[in-house]
């Protein structure tokens, strides 16, 4: 999943991309969608493909049995997921085929077939990948800056009363203003459209990250702080080695929420003031009466958002290995 992003993050050299590259990106994307739809299908197809090795009996056999057993156990879940998605697509298909019109109107809604056809065409369009890459870059910058600032300020505000007294009132006043409400002001504030969109994305994710970090610092077990102080920890060691790691679970909750809000803000900003970006693509499709592309834009936004949340979960699990052992101990 993650290996796809770096390529997408290089919007400067889209021309250099060979057709082979594109089909690869396409395939990985298709796999990703398939994997999202049916967890386990990727392993399902690879398992029989690996040649059996009858000579080495003991080791691989139980492993394969284990895999088979695992697939068997996952089968009911996979079937119900397939059924659920199948029903959705079937409803979509029939609703658009018979142009259902009962208060909500399916007259102009593209059918699954049209969407698929357009997707095939778009998969050859450099412009389309550029739009994805630009959106991802905005997320990376906006969310990245929000992460650094949100965690740093959150730690300071949570830990030091004077910092809290100085900064928190400002944030309390600004926080209830949705990031999207900043769009006109942001356009005036920042020198370019690009920076203002990144700013909107930043604003969306900054407050969830900040507030959750503060909450994390406030809920650190005081016994741990006392133990660290007794053991001779200086203020900075206390902050780095105790307060920060102790707050990490809350911080990652903030990051997960922040990532969601970042996408909401980004898409809105791109639709309102944007040039380029997947949100702009989706809105432009409406203006150009390319209705099938609207659905494609929506699906891609969903998939990218899902991938970003997944990346945060992965990083979180890697940074907090002790949580897994705690969960194990509670069983």
């Amino acid at each position, binding site marked *: 999943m993650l290996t796809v992003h770096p390529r997408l993050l290089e919007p400067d050299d889209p021309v250099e991309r060979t057709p082979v590259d594109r089909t690869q990106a396409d395939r990985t994307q298709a796999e990703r969608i398939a994997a999202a739809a049916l967890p386990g299908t990727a392993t399902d197809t690879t398992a029989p493909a690996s040649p059996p090795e009858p000579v080495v009996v003991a080791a691989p056999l139980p492993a394969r049995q284990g895999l088979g057993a695992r697939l068997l156990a996952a089968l009911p879940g996979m079937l119900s997921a397939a059924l659920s998605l199948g029903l959705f697509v079937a409803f979509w298909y029939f609703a658009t085929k018979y142009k259902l019109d009962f208060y909500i109107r399916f007259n102009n809604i593209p059918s699954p077939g049209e969407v698929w056809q357009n997707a095939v065409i778009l998969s050859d369009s450099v412009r389309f990948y550029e739009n994805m890459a630009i959106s991802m870059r905005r997320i990376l910058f906006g969310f990245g800056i929000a992460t650094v600032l949100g965690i740093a300020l959150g730690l300071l505000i949570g830990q030091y009363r004077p910092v809290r007294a100085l900064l928190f009132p400002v944030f309390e006043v600004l926080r209830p203003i949705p990031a999207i409400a900043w769009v006109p002001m942001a356009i005036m504030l920042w020198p370019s459209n690009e920076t203002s969109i990144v700013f909107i994305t930043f604003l969306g994710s900054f407050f969830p990250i900040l507030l959750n970090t503060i909450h994390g610092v406030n809920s650190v077990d005081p016994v741990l702080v006392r133990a660290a102080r007794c*053991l001779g920890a200086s203020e900075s060691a206390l902050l780095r080695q105790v307060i920060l*790691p*102790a707050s990490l679970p809350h911080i990652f909750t903030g990051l997960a929420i922040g990532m969601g809000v970042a996408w909401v803000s980004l898409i809105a900003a791109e639709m309102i003031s944007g040039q380029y970006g997947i949100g702009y693509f989706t809105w432009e499709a409406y203006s150009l009466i390319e209705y099938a592309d609207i659905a494609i834009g929506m699906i891609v936004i969903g998939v990218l958002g899902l991938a970003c949340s997944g990346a945060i979960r992965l990083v979180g699990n890697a940074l907090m290995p*002790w949580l897994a*052992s*705690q969960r194990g101990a509670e069983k």
Partner: protein
Amino acid sequence: MIEALSKKEIPEASMTQSTDRLRQSNRGAIHVDKVSVEFKRNGQAFSALAPVDLNVEAGAFVSFLGPSGCGKTTLLNVISGMLRPTTGSVQIDDTPVTRPIPLCNVVFQQHSLFPWMKVIDNVAFGPQQLGDGDPEGTARTFLSLVGLDKFATLYPAQLSGGMQQRVAIARALATYPPVLLMDEPFGALDAQTRTIMQEELLKIWANFSTTVIFVTHDIDEAIYLSDRIVVMRTAPGSVKEVIDVPIPRPRTPKIMQSEVFSRIRLRVIDLIREETLKIFNSTER
């Protein structure tokens, strides 16, 4: 410092009678001078600790005993520097205690290990803060002292409660503090583990010339472990009586059947009963 540790290879030598051992060590004398603590509760001043005077010789094992709410933990917090007394002062050797200083480390009741650090890193934390050249090596030494060197790379949550407390003891000792403060360290353990931990603690302590302040409400535990028991008075907390425990060391659980033990036990029970009744009746009203 190194001498203190190397003693563990010849534990027999240090397991002499308590009075001899007291004379041997010269660090960790505690002087509590007219310490009182007042809290504000609902705008009213509430006295948690009436003026307390207490001297603990270097290397002694002293228990604070009393019913809950007698201020024994408050007094411990003042000695550790985590709580500033309203009046009076505390000195460890010649150093006045006004904030947490590495002269005394605390073993808390439970869950005081850093859950995100592996066992070895927990123990190495103190040495690392104090600029020990080889914090990991020191940590390993102390882990093997409490018999947990095999579990160095596990996280605290993967250990049993008793093992976690042994790690906590190793962590507290790893900076060679002259004073070890223990706040009901075995209070959350089951009875069997608790007994074993008490024996274990005595063995470990025999290798260190460390003063131990041990807060508990378990009478047998206090007598079994201590050179001296400070029975606390309640509401406000203060020292009711200091009782010597003239039972020679090394001690085994067998001493609990001795005549001296029962005599001290009866005396302590009487004292505590008076105090508990006082609280009981005042809350009844």
